[in-house]
């Protein structure tokens, strides 16, 4: 708990953020550049899918982020409801649009990959449908956050939605094992280790790291912005009180 409380102080959080941001931003740019270079130049075309496999290097990291960001929101929501951690709500609020963006990308790039490989832009199978539900959960979370006059009530409603909706995450993960689907099963996060060749695994992993770093950069800036907004709300209220 002591670690928790240390970061609960917004001023300490801001100070730490300002120190960390330049480094994380630099690492994001480097890993993106290396990842993109490897995706296009050092990784081979797939023996079945040809060059179209290169969509994997953005599709799979996007899908990972879609689930990772949602899990982060669910954890933040638990922290917010149980411990009333002051930064937890801000982290959840700041994460949702990023997660929604990545979920949209997972769906859109998957569609662009599915058309040449499966012959269809979209199929209503378990994997695709559960990810579409995830996208709507994100939108619902964002809508609830802004639905109430009092920010507190919006935070609480959104937190409950995030926790209840978390049930969808294992469904997404195991959908390819539980149901018949066009979508291929897991080839990286498997019990018996990755079944994908290192020449493709490396760029995929580096792109995965790059996307995660990008999330951290945007998240930190958004939380910073939210902290300022909280101060602005106080100032605005003071102005209104004075006017009355």
């Amino acid at each position: 708990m002591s670690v928790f409380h240390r970061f609960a102080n917004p001023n300490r959080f801001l100070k730490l953020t300002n120190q960390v941001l330049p480094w994380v931003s630099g690492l994001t740019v480097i890993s993106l550049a290396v990842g993109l270079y490897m995706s296009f130049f050092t990784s081979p075309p797939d023996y079945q899918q040809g060059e179209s496999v290169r969509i994997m290097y953005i599709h799979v990291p996007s899908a990972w982020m879609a689930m990772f960001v949602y899990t982060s929101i669910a954890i933040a929501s638990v922290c917010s409801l149980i411990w009333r951690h002051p930064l937890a709500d801000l982290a959840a609020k700041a994460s949702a649009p990023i997660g929604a963006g990545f979920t949209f990308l997972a769906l859109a790039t998957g569609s662009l990959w599915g058309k040449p490989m499966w012959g269809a832009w979209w199929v209503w199978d378990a994997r695709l449908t559960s990810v579409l539900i995830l996208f709507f959960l994100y939108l619902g979370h964002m809508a609830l956050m802004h639905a109430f006059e009092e920010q507190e009530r919006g935070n609480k409603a959104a937190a409950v939605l995030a926790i209840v909706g978390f049930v969808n995450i294992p469904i997404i993960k195991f959908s390819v094992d539980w149901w018949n689907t066009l979508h291929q099963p897991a080839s990286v996060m498997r019990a018996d280790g990755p079944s994908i060749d290192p020449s493709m695994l490396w760029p995929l992993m580096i792109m995965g790291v790059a996307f995660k770093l990008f999330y951290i950069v945007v998240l930190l800036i958004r939380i910073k912005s939210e902290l300022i907004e909280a101060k602005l709300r106080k100032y605005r209220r003071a102005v209104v009180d004075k006017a009355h």
Partner: protein
Amino acid sequence: MEQITNFLSMGNYGAYIWTAYLLTAAVMLGLLVTTLQRLRKNKAELAEFQTIQNSTKQSGHKEETARP
């Protein structure tokens, strides 16, 4: 030249691959830009409030000292 067109055609999957990558770049850049714009806007508004607060504080002090 042929090398470049070969690269861009991506074994005839170019349209799908480049659309996917451009879309990804657009969404990620969009997220970053809107986030930075909001931070800048908030910072500016906060600075405005703080200058107002400082000036009212100063004038408030003068009033108090002016009173006997």
